[in-house]
């Protein structure tokens, strides 16, 4: 019974948001200047074939009925066929999705490992030079276009210094050498005991992940800082200090222990925003993930692929939001009380 506010309300809002997402992609699909029937039958089809296809696709139905048909199709996992690859869009997305998960996961790891300590240090040195310096580092993270940062990183660390492997997921020597199990090369190569491939994959993923993760580092450190400042002003901290506890223990055990729940929420939200950042980063680093799939489909006006990709990314986005809400609602007693 105490679970119902934690699950029920977010679930209802997820349903509404999801309908909204599908309504938007549906409208976008209908306002394209390209006639969807012509795209299927070709320019020179006889009028009878054209009409038959139009009816088969349900385009003679009223719009609301078309919309319910559209929802039913998507519920059955049918996102249409890509004009470019000739395969079902869902199949294409299944193939490219693991690459994006791989990139976003390493990026969020970097964001957490760098962002959390930075935020804690800034808060425990509130108002001093460390705080100002880290604030500037954070603001710069919000101001740099990620695709440009990626290009500069390639120029410096790949072309000039030779510290990083080039674009793509693997070097030419290893390309296609690994039979996918999960589709995540870092995992697959370990499962198959191919350490050389693992090392090559790691060398390729680090640079794009750090570039992508810089923004999440900025966000995570800013949030960590403000959570920590809230905690450090509480009376129990003063008590701990008066008892003679070391400052390090006060900060890391007492204050930090109390912000972990909030941090998990922030990290889940960051993960969602990374999927979006991945669109631009993947394009720069020739990373064969969902972002590159969407952008290359954009250029060939392959709308089924674009909208299918949008639906999937939107879905993951909404789900991660739900996860963040649920964790927060379950673990934080105050939030539970507020919702009840």
């Amino acid at each position: 019974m105490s679970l119902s506010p934690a699950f029920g309300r977010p679930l209802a809002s997820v349903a509404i948001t999801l309908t909204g997402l599908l309504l938007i992609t549906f409208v976008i699909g209908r306002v394209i200047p390209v006639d969807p029937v012509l795209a299927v039958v070709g320019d020179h089809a006889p009028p009878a074939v054209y009409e038959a296809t139009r009816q088969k696709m349900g385009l003679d139905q009223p719009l609301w009925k078309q919309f319910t048909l559209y929802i039913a199709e998507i519920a059955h996992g049918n996102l249409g066929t890509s004009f470019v690859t000739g395969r079902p869009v869902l199949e294409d997305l299944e193939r490219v999705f693991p690459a994006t998960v791989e990139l976003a996961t390493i990026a969020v790891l970097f964001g957490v490992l760098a962002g959390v300590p930075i935020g804690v240090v800034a808060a425990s040195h509130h108002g001093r030079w460390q705080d100002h310096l880290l604030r500037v580092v954070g603001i710069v993270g919000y101001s740099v276009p990620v695709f440009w940062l990626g290009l500069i990183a390639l120029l410096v660390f790949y072309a000039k210094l030779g510290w990083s492997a080039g674009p793509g997921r693997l070097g030419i020597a290893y390309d296609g050498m690994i039979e996918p199990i999960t589709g995540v090369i870092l995992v697959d190569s370990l499962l198959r005991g191919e350490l050389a491939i693992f090392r090559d994959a790691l060398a390729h993923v680090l640079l794009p992940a750090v570039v992508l993760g810089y923004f999440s580092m900025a966000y995570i450190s800013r949030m960590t800082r403000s959570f920590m400042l809230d905690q450090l002003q509480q009376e129990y901290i003063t008590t701990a200090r008066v008892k003679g506890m070391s400052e390090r223990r006060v900060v890391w055990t007492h204050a930090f222990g109390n912000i972990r729940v909030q941090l998990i929420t922030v990290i889940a939200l960051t993960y969602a925003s990374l999927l979006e950042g991945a669109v631009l980063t993947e394009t720069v680093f020739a990373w064969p993930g969902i972002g590159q799939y969407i952008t290359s489909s954009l250029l060939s006006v392959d709308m089924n692929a674009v909208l299918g990709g949008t639906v999937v990314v939107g879905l993951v986005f909404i789900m991660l939001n739900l996860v963040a809400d649920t964790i927060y609602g379950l673990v934080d007693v105050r939030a539970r009380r507020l919702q009840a």
Partner: protein
Amino acid sequence: MSAPAGYRPDPMSAQLQRGSTLHGWLTTAEPASQWQASLGDSYVRALFLLRNPLAMCGLVIVLGLLAVAAFAPAIATQDPNAQDLAARLLPPSSGHWFGTDEFGRDMFSRVVYGSRVTLLTITCVVTIIGPFGLVVGVVAGYLGGWADTLLMRMTDIFLALPRLILALALVAALKPGIQNAIIAIILTSWSPYARVARAEAITLRGSEFIDAARLSGASAARIIFSHILPLCVPSVIVRGTLDMAGVILIAAGLGFLGMGAQPPAPEWGTMIAQGRVFILEQWWVATMPGLAICVVSLGFNLLGDGLRDVLDPKNR
């Protein structure tokens, strides 16, 4: 400056004012009129802002952007679209400060003219979504009930969806170009403004001066538009300033992916996309417009941060 008519200072404050008249008049503890009080309030806030070095950096950058955009023809050393194939891909030099691109066009002049495209984009976006989000948020917050539920559900849908990807899909459907890019950014960016304005309106709704207005027979529309809305403007301005960097980055991202301004328009994101091919040999073609984006969005972020400290009711 002389005191306004009807202003009768007591001897003490008159003495204080002899030292620094305008400053004293603005910071007096006993303002004689409403407009003296509000003028003084703005003055004190401006002083706070002036004392924040980071915010001042931001303000200088933003003013610089305005100046460069306004006087682009005077600042640019050449016509931004003049091609000179004999001078292709020249490195930065005294003749071409930022080098030249693959058509021999002067990069410095193109970056300077690019400020106009950027300014046009953010002006269009912010002047439309600021007031729109403000009205939606204030109406939802003041009326409450089903109006609130309906409007906020709509807001949540847009808030919960990936902004850039939706904008990309929209532009692809509408046909790539700067105009459609602006439309797509507007459609995907208004929701946070409504959230901010609603939160403010809800806290104001319960205050006594609103009760007083209601008791004296003011209509809901009058309360919303002449009492609540003006007080929500500062938070929306802060939100807008902080958001401008986001708008600039999204517009540049759309341009980079070929969905925004189309070549040969000197748009910074589009220019980076063109220079991408040469990045390893002729680094300046992609680097210079990217630096321009960084500096301008950094300026808006710094200014927004400073404004938040000054205007946020919690920091008073």
